[in-house]
């Protein structure tokens, strides 16, 4: 299993603990793990797309690129793809955005905001169902990514994540 798969499984395990009286720590860490699962799924796919193959130094290059993804930039790009209106030049490069990719991008935006609240907003109390739903959405995004990847719009999304748009 990939690191992203492991994180997604960990998220599911965390929110399933103490179902009657779940600890806030478990719910918060579960939401956070769900976000990072999707983050790593997408950044790994992006790095593999940009630097393919097993030639000399390729793995090191992929690892270097994976350190360069910015959460804020990924959120902004994802919001554009989620709405079907990515900024140029990505709009021209992607063509019509599939509903599969739109769901993945929308889920990324939702989870990133939830992750921030889970990790930093201590005035807020999480309910179990709220966390369960967010983890389910992450699981659905993994399924939808399998349907989305390999298409023109998905390639544009993977490229756009790491290259800041001037639009």
């Amino acid at each position, binding site marked *: 299993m990939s690191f992203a798969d492991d994180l997604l499984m960990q998220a599911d395990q965390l929110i399933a603990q103490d179902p009657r009286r779940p600890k806030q720590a478990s719910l918060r860490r579960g939401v956070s793990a769900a976000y990072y699962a999707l983050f790593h799924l997408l950044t790994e796919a992006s790095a593999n797309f940009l630097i393919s193959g097993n030639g000399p130094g390729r793995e090191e290059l992929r690892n270097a690129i994976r350190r360069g993804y910015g959460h804020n930039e990924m959120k*902004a790009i994802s919001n554009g793809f989620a709405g079907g209106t990515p900024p140029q030049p990505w709009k021209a490069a992607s063509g019509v955005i599939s509903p599969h990719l739109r769901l993945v991008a929308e889920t990324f935006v*939702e989870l*990133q*905001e*939830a992750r*921030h*609240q889970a990790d930093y907003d201590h005035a807020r*109390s999480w*309910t179990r*169902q709220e966390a369960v739903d967010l983890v389910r959405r992450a699981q659905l995004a993994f399924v939808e990514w399998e349907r989305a990847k390999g298409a023109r719009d998905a390639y544009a999304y993977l490229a756009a994540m790491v290259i800041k748009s001037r639009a």
Partner: protein
Amino acid sequence: MLGPETIKDAITDVQPRTKGVQIGSEIFTGRDSTDEDAVWVYVLVPDERIEDFYAEWDQVRDEIRRRIRDRLGDENAYVYIRMRAASEVATEP
């Protein structure tokens, strides 16, 4: 950014098939974690109907988001939609 009452008005006609679901049980507006104007909409679902509601959850989410973005006149507005179980909210201290 419009206020919660205006947001509530924008989504008042979103009517799920699942009985007892409250769209916009809580609505907040403000700045999100990346300092963007944003709207948070909570959907309250009776515990015994949560699994049934999942059949239409995506559709309901899309409808809520579309109506709010239309009202805001911003096709890329940040709208966060969350689900809570009715029992959990009722038992919160």
